[in-house]
């Protein structure tokens, strides 16, 4: 494993205030784990409900450290050639055909030369994982929604996560010149393998507490008044206590707050809240329920 290099963060508080500077309000557990990830040179596995700022965290850390963000969006059927590297078949094929033509006129390259040639870096297409490893500038690697790939594909990640290297049979092992910070996010649609979890620090991001949510609303929604932000945060918290099919997430809270600002609302009353409820809640049954329980207007 390459040397870790100087730590990116001075202290826990530096992480927290730094993240706040780039517009991400972290709580104790988030800043603590980010700090440790840097110190222990370990990837972070971020899990939690959708829309709680998991992806945003990686982006903010990239912002904070001035690193380039390399993102690998996972999906079903993702494989080696999309995640790690791929040989450029078409170019290789052209190279071989070009060699054949050459042979007819005069002596072309021997097969041995050709083979060395077509399996060189020129014919290698670097995909996100390899790119992150080969980068010489500081990078943050974000593997988004890692729970969407199949169990077998997960194994691809293991070598990178623990050793920060990639083995390519034809070329040998590519080692990282610097250690990227790695974030994996998961929406928890399936259990990740033990092997993957073991290599990561685990961070569970849940819906924020009232105070933090209020601060998030205030920092991300320009022009919102303090009272409105407070009211928004409190209503959202109450909504989350109801048994809804999909509780409102932070991003939905922000959307709602923005809508209210655009509409020029100063204080929310029951009727006004009901009219804009569809921004917070995405199921008709939920909307009806919230209107009934919380707003007592039918």
């Amino acid at each position: 494993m390459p040397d870790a290099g100087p730590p990116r963060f001075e202290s826990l508080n530096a992480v927290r205030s730094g993240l706040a500077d780039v517009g991400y309000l972290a709580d104790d557990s988030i800043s603590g784990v980010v700090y440790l990830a840097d110190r222990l040179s370990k990837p972070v596995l971020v899990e939690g409900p959708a829309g709680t700022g998991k992806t945003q965290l990686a982006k903010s850390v990239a912002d904070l450290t001035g690193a380039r963000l390399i993102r690998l969006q996972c999906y079903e059927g993702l494989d080696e050639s999309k995640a790690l590297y791929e040989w450029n078949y078409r170019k290789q094929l052209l190279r071989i055909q070009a060699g054949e033509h050459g042979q007819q006129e005069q002596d072309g390259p021997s097969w041995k030369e050709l083979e060395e040639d077509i399996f060189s870096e020129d014919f290698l297409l670097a995909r996100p994982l390899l790119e992150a490893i080969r980068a010489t500038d500081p990078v943050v690697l974000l593997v988004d929604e890692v729970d969407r790939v199949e169990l077998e594909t997960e194994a691809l990640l293991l070598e990178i996560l623990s050793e920060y290297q990639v083995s390519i049979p034809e070329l040998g092992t590519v080692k990282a010149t610097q250690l990227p910070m790695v974030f994996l996010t998961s929406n928890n649609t399936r259990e990740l393998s033990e092997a993957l979890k073991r290599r990561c620090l685990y961070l569970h991001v849940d819906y924020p507490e009232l105070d933090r949510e209020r601060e998030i609303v205030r920092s991300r929604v320009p022009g919102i008044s303090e009272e409105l932000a407070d009211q928004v945060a409190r209503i959202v918290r109450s909504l989350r206590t109801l048994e809804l099919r999909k509780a409102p997430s932070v991003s939905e809270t922000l959307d709602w707050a923005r809508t209210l600002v655009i509409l020029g609302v100063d204080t929310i009353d029951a009727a006004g809240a009901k009219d804009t409820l569809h921004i917070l809640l995405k199921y008709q049954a939920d909307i009806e329920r919230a209107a009934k329980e919380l707003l007592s207007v039918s």
Partner: protein
Amino acid sequence: MDLLSDFVTELRKAGLPVSLTEHLDAAEAMHHVPLEDREGLKYALAGTLVKSSSHWRAFETAFEVFFAVRGGHGVGGELGEDGDESEEDGSGDKDGAAGTGEGGQRGKGRSWNGAGGGEGMTPEELAELLFKSLMSADPALMNVVARNAVDRYAGMEPGRPVGGTYYLYRTLRNLDLDAVLQKLLGQARGAAAGGDGLTDLEERLAADEYKARIEKFRRAVETEIRRRLVEDRGAEALARSVRKPLPEDIDVMHATREELAVLHRVLQPLSRKMAVRLARKRRHGRKGPLDFRATMRRSLSTGGVPIEPRYRHPRPAKPEIFIIADISGSVASFARFTLHLVYAISSQFSKVRAFVFIDGIDEVTRFFEGVIDPAEAVARINTEADVIWVDGHSDYGHALSEFHRRWGDEVSSRSSVLLLGDARNNYHASQSWVVEDLQNRARRVYWLNPEPRDYWGSGDSIVGEYAVHCDDVVECRTLRQLEHFVGNLA
């Protein structure tokens, strides 16, 4: 470091899979966080040791015990050390910390069980202070109140091997938090009375706010009690008494109300995960024969060289499921969980039909039609299904023969039959020929028994009589076992 090892051992005992690497990581992580930063330490350990959100509760409990706050809770930073005696309690510093003007109460250092002692606060004063702390949401003040309340009401006896639940209950009962909530709401209403009073929305928001504060206070009391218990009996002993099984390991048949609530919470994500996993398994399970046409089409982009072969995807037949569940008292919650889980993955089956019985039997498939959330349908079964024939005690024999008479012909070679229950038949006739006949008709017959295997066949349990006609009889005590079985079914 020893403390960490003990802590890891305790986590393993609680059922968390903590590997050696994770232990080492935790040890290294501890070097990087200042030890006096308790919250930081907690998250450092959580990040390295706990790898699933459903294990968080067990971790937190163990952490509270092992790394309990010793000494003052940092109230105003001026609390005296609790000292070796641990009976000494700095309850008096609240006036300095909170500045509420309740002067003259400098702590006299009361012993634990001197709850009736008159030198502390009177109940009225305590209630007043509690009210104020909740009104202002001042955590320091809350801790002081929690400490005093535990002093006064918990009546803790040193050396008793208990987990503290009882002390908690006693303290909270005496404080009567419901009344406090009403009072807080009254106050809020009063404050707004100058204007138009509170609207419904505002009132609801205020109520939620105060409930959250009260919950915080309750946790403060719990922490306080735990701290004292640790001082009394040591971390390890206490950890043993407060250890709770992980949600997947809770015995469904003997779950307490609280545990059932936990189970319901994990069931939702669990069934979703299963549905996703099985859908994938079906799609990617096997590769079919080479699809020659698609391969040739594909090869056009590489100049006619077939570099990526394409395969036909096989489409295996989906089984049809008959669930016949006993929903009498003893096994009701087990039946509910199973129905929930099977319906959550019903897309994996061509058809699911559900029957419930006690001594009569009724088809409940209709409840599940057009319902998005299986929980709703399961709730309706309890109230609407017609399952009582004579006296409402389980009668497997009658229920099964009735099933055979009314629906037996519909069981075909494409169906799998699941029988759910403990087969405690109250000494009625078993009618096991029904099961035998079902086995001849159906593809598979399974029996799921929520009782531990050791109890089978004891008392009025006649699972053995049915077992000979089943393809498999499975012990299903926990969600983990249930998930495993249902996963294999599809």
